[in-house]
């Protein structure tokens, strides 16, 4: 049972976090919101954008503001699963040799998987268990990860040579996929100012603790959503399936696979977090709209025709949103 105090604390935490991140990141409000929502929903975030847009900086700023254990994994083609998860090493203690588990960089609260699509699928898959169940299994032993846990992965849409697209199973485990766009002219001027004057870029001081984050995560799940809105979300997700009778014409023509049930969970949970972030006591249709596209854009797989004709998934989702009635 949540109390007024929990509610107020969650609002205060989010305010502080946003303020701290804004000290480092110029603009990119939707991206910052999506990051905070992912944190509140105990989800993982896939950030996609060309180099130099501040993806890594955003994650570092968040980790710094949270005051939590942060680790960064730079994904490369020769990266092995053990480099992420850790491995059993032979140690000698008092003349007695034994295997001892040495945890990998995945054992942190905030994990930055930088350029995640540069590692091989085998290595990428090493993240699956950690992202979904917050546990790591090495050998016959399963190790729990410390809460709160969040994986923030980045990937570069260009320079695709030598990259390995993320397998669908792994993509589906990201709560949101956020596309980072270029900053505006004014934002760019401010970015240059912050990075070229004074002592340079300084990461924010910690403004939160792990228990505060966990309490905020608990509050999010109590945010109410009306039953008809829940049904609306289900219809929206169904409408992304080409075989669904509710699917728009373009979805039927250009989509191979629609969104999974995880997508519906992501939308509802994300909408709850968005409502909390906006200071609302309940989920609104506007909250659903705000998270609908980032929650589904990486879960809808186009067919050959869709890819060949260059139909964007975002456009298909816009059509689904427009053509699916609330009631």
């Amino acid at each position, binding site marked *: *049972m949540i109390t*007024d105090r929990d509610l107020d604390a969650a609002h205060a935490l989010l305010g502080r976090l946003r303020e701290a991140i804004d000290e480092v990141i110029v603009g990119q409000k939707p991206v910052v919101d999506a990051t905070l929502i992912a944190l509140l929903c105990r989800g993982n975030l896939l950030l996609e954008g060309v180099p130099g847009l501040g993806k890594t900086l955003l994650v570092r700023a968040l980790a710094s503001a949270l005051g939590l254990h942060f680790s960064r994994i730079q994904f490369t083609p020769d990266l092995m699963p053990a480099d992420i998860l850790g491995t059993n090493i032979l140690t000698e203690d008092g003349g007695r040799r034994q295997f001892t588990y040495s945890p990998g960089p995945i054992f942190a609260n905030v994990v930055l998987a930088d350029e995640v699509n540069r590692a091989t699928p085998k290595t990428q898959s090493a993240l699956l268990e950690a992202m979904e169940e917050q546990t790591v299994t090495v050998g016959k032993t399963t190790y729990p990860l410390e809460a709160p846990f969040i994986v923030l992965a980045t990937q570069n849409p260009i320079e695709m040579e030598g990259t390995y697209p993320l397998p669908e199973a792994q993509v589906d485990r990201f709560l949101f996929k956020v596309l980072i766009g270029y900053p505006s002219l004014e934002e760019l001027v401010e970015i240059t100012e912050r990075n070229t004057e004074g002592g340079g870029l300084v990461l924010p001081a910690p403004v939160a603790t792990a228990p505060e984050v966990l309490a905020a995560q608990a509050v999010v799940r109590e*945010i*109410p*959503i*009306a*039953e008809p809105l829940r049904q609306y979300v289900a219809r929206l997700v169904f409408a992304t399936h080409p075989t669904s009778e509710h699917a728009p014409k373009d979805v039927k023509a250009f989509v191979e696979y629609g969104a999974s049930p995880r997508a519906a969970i992501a939308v509802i949970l994300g909408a709850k977090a968005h409502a909390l972030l906006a200071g609302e*006591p*309940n989920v609104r249709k506007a909250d659903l709209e705000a998270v609908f596209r980032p929650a589904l854009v990486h879960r809808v797989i186009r067919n050959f025709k869709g890819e060949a004709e260059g139909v964007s998934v975002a456009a298909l989702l816009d059509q689904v949103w427009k053509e699916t009635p609330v*009631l």
Partner: protein
Amino acid sequence: MFSLSRFEQAVTRRARALRGLRGAGIAFATTAALLLAAALVGRLARFPVRLDARIAALLFAVLAAVAGYLVGRARRPSLPRLLLSIDLALGTGERLSSLHELRTRDAALPLQRRIEDRLSAAPPAWRRVVHARPMDALPWVGGVVGLFAAVILVASAASPLPAAAVSGTHGTSPGSESEASLRLDVAEAGREGVPAGRLDPGEGEAAEPLVDTLAEILRGPPSRGLAGEFDLEDSSPPQERRRDAKSALQELLAELFRRGELMPNLPLNLTEADKAALRDLLAEMTDPTLRQSLTSLMNTEGGEALEKELAETQRLLDALEESARGEGSGDAQATPSEDDQEEEEDAESIGWIPPAPAEEQNTGSGEGAEEGLEENPEGTGMEDESALPPNEEGGTTPGAEARSRGRLPPAGAGFLQEELLGTLGSGGDVRRFFTKGVPFEPPAEDSSSVPVLSLDYETLRALLEARALSPEVQGLIRTYFEKITQGGS
């Protein structure tokens, strides 16, 4: 403080009432559509629609609307959906529906309070959105239009229309529609050459109002109303028209024979003009044999069969003329003038009996009555008290009155409700068929156990003339009675 329970009660009440109204509208419109369809089918199929049936149909529409209201009201709306629709319409941030969701949860009391606080600060003006929409009026408008159209349809089926412009239907209700139906029946029968006396008892029962209407025409005060509706180009007296009909038939037969002689190598055929002329003449003729012959003539294909039919018709016509001439010379002493004798001669030759002077009707001698019986041995078997003048004791003497033919009814005789015994053609018992004011030939005293009724045409003609009806209407009524009595006297 905002009270969700009270809000939900008010909204539900209003929503149910609206649902009831919508259900009533749909039921009303559906019923009206069904009634309209029934009216259309009834019109096309000539199905009789009685007045009480129409009233019952309207009542049914009203009852359906009431039932629709009750059914619609009984269906409880989905409260979450209703609240969400109000939320979306008012832009309340989905607080109402979320609050409803929270009511079932105890773990989120702070959230519930915050939502209630916000709703109290800005109470939703829900009456603006939970109301009858313009679309809700559509079924009502449609229903009213449908009912109106159905009523118009039924009424127009019964309104007086020119016989030539209407394909015909059985009238089913009293009033003007009966008159129209009467005309239509007769016109239809005349066109199709239906043998006289073809109406069966069932049809007779359905046509009962027609006879009533006809009786009303016969009994009512003189008026030119109906006459004004028709072209009065044929204003010649009836006797002249009958003579004309006979001579016209003679001429037509002669023309047909002449045509056959002129083109001996070609099969003789009737043109459409010939058939039309025959049809007109058929309407004028009253002799059943001659009518039958003319009908056969019209229906014959052509060639040798047609020539035979022509010869047969000519033979019949000659025989009738011969007979009329013989009777005319024998009755010459009994007739008051040559003109009268000529009238009777001509009329009898085609089945019409000329009227006798009014004095003779009321004081008809035994001799005259006996003559009438001899001339028309089948025209007996009815007790038409109201159509006959009273005797000295205030009653009637049917036997004596039966001897007076062609009499006029006394002014204001009344033609009260009559119940006639006897048979009519092959139709069987007609007691219920003829009701009031129909001038029937009274039955003879020594008639058989089942008397045969026949129409007193002279009385009818005199009545019609006294009504100052146009020739067309007179012909129409006359033809009608010819149809139902197989000719009469």
